């Protein structure tokens, strides 16, 4: 492998890893509060992408307005999902809540197929946002720079909210202990809804960035990024926002390097993420930056 190829692989790894990181932050926030894999999170990526797509193509909105509206719409949808499908099951067995999450995810995917059709659509790339950069023999999209920046900014913003605001303190209290927090006069419903709003907004940003990077959208587009970003969140330590970022980068880099160094194994690329997940769960269930969780009775 030449140096040029190696550097190209690094660039590829950064651009994939930063996308994973961006989406994983939303996952980890929601999981941190309600301790439930929000399977529908993956499909919010899809909803946001379609909303942005129709905003630009049908309503001829400028791309930034369209993106903002898509983020808003996705946020509202995320909050509604929490209210309709998760809140009634908060005291039910965990399995019921998980089934509900899977149900919502399937509903969104299939509604997508019914409403917009199964065939993929080309996602428009605004020219002043996406262009090709050549540095020596290495080529990458401007997104490889923009997405990590967005991720860092959002990470800082989320950290600020969680650590400095009242709602953030309430969030941390709820994530530590649901019942005690509610006894201490924390409005748990408000906290959960806010978390879902923020998480869904992050999903929307992630979805739109994903679609800019891989500009082809279809109703099932969220499934694989969703699974992988969940894995990234677990790797970093679920519930830990910086951890999600680290996990995302490591997973993206690992996938690219697997293909780069062992092209014969490129067919096993999707298995790689799952193998990593299982190893992490077995040997370091708290993740890289997470704290070790002791099972409570």
């Amino acid at each position, binding site marked *: 492998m030449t140096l040029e190829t190696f550097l190209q692989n690094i660039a*590829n790894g950064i651009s994939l890893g930063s996308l994973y990181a961006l989406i994983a932050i939303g996952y980890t926030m929601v999981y941190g509060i309600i301790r439930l894999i929000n399977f529908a999170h993956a499909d919010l990526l899809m909803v946001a992408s379609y909303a942005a797509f129709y905003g630009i193509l049908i309503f001829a909105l400028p791309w930034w307005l369209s993106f903002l509206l898509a983020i808003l719409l996705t946020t509202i949808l995320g909050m509604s999902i929490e209210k309709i499908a998760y809140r009634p099951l908060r005291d039910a067995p965990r399995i019921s809540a998980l089934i509900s999450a899977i149900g919502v995810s399937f509903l969104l995917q299939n509604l997508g197929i019914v409403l917009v059709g199964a065939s993929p659509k080309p996602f428009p790339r605004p020219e002043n946002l996406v262009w090709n950069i050549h540095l020596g023999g290495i*080529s990458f999209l401007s997104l490889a720079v923009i997405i990590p920046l967005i991720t860092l900014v959002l990470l800082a913003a989320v950290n600020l909210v969680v650590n400095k605001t009242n709602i953030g303190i309430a969030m941390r209290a709820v994530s530590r202990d649901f019942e005690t927090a509610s006894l201490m006069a924390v409005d748990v419903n408000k906290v959960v809804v806010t978390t879902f709003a923020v998480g869904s907004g992050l999903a929307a940003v992630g979805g739109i960035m994903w679609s800019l990077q891989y*500009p082809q959208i279809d109703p*099932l587009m969220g499934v694989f990024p969703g699974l992988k970003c969940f894995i990234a969140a677990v790797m970093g330590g679920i519930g830990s926002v910086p951890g999600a970022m680290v996990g995302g980068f490591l997973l993206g880099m690992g996938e690219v*390097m697997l*293909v780069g160094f062992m*092209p014969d194994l*490129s067919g096993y690329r999707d298995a790689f993420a799952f193998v990593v997940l299982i190893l992490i769960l077995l040997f370091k269930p708290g993740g890289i930056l997470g704290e070790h969780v002791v099972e409570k009775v």
Partner: protein
Amino acid sequence: MKVRKFLALMAAVLLAAVALVGCGGGGEKASSEDAAKDSDVIKIGVYEPLTGINAAGGEMTLDGIELANKLYPEVLGKKVELVVADNKSEKQEAANAVARLVNEGVDVIIGSYGSSLSMAGGPVAEEAGVPVIGCSPTNPLVTKGNDYYFRVCFIDPFQGTVMANYAVNTLGAKTAAIIQDVQQDYSVGLSKYFEESFKELTGDENAIVAKVNYNTGDKDFSAQLTEVKDKNPDVIFAPGNFTECGILVERARELGIKAPILGGDTWEAKEFLNRVGDLEDIYFSTHFTAEEPVTEVSETFLNEFKKEYPDKQVNAFAALGFDSYLLALDAIERAGSTDHEKIKEELAKTSGFKGATGIITLDENGDATKTAIIKKVEDGKFVYEAKVDPQN
């Protein structure tokens, strides 16, 4: 307690209702089958993926079949009725769909886009003794060992060989890289035959400098393409779904890979064109061209297609659907009846049949031997590039 009893009762009622509906539906079908025998209607079944991942291909094929049905609605003095069943891009559904068509008393079945779907439907039709004409399943296994399955398209080995020929003889390539979708039989099959012919034609065992894999649904190909770029091949062969390949080809050019990129007939889709329309040196083999009509049927098809679907682009799948329907009608006419055995025998004898996609002769497996077309992408259009005859 009451609630539980109520639910149990509901369950019983629901079960009974569903069972009744199920049987009732079945009964109707059985009687309509009898009716069809004497009535003035000849039923042709169509099973295509109208939903799921292959939906786009299924829809294009169905366009062609419906157009043909509209133009030629009669055979043996009877009206031809199409019975369409969606196979949902899933194998068990494909088998169910064929079973359902057989049950509705169809005389010939057309389908399906997607070889694995056709392989699932094939045995059911064979069992029932109903002949099937495949429009675009190109996997050799579809017709192998199944006397009732025929097809109007050529098969993967031929396509792979044609592209290797083109790469070596016309593009002057000495080395090639292969990027294949390990989940698609189509992609794996074309790659294998391309690889074999390419090595044979160049006389170089190491002519394939890189062979990398991806999975259906993948969107990030930068790692695979970086590997290919590192090996600097003369051409890249990347057969696969137009959805993945569209992104792959675009990404290859973004990464600064200049080598010509070759593919197979699945690339002939407007989604693919939308993505790669302004890129250069992209070639693929296909079944049909609008620019060089091969037969007078091609002209008819072209004109009528533009009239019927002014918003759509003429495509090979519609043409193959069109041909499948015409071949079905032709075989019924030659058989002089709707006797399934006779139709099957006549289909097997098909020789020099003039379809929209060319002159079709079926070999001993029931596979069409016919001319392949090579097209390239140019200024947002698919442009006719060359014709390759089966003997070469």
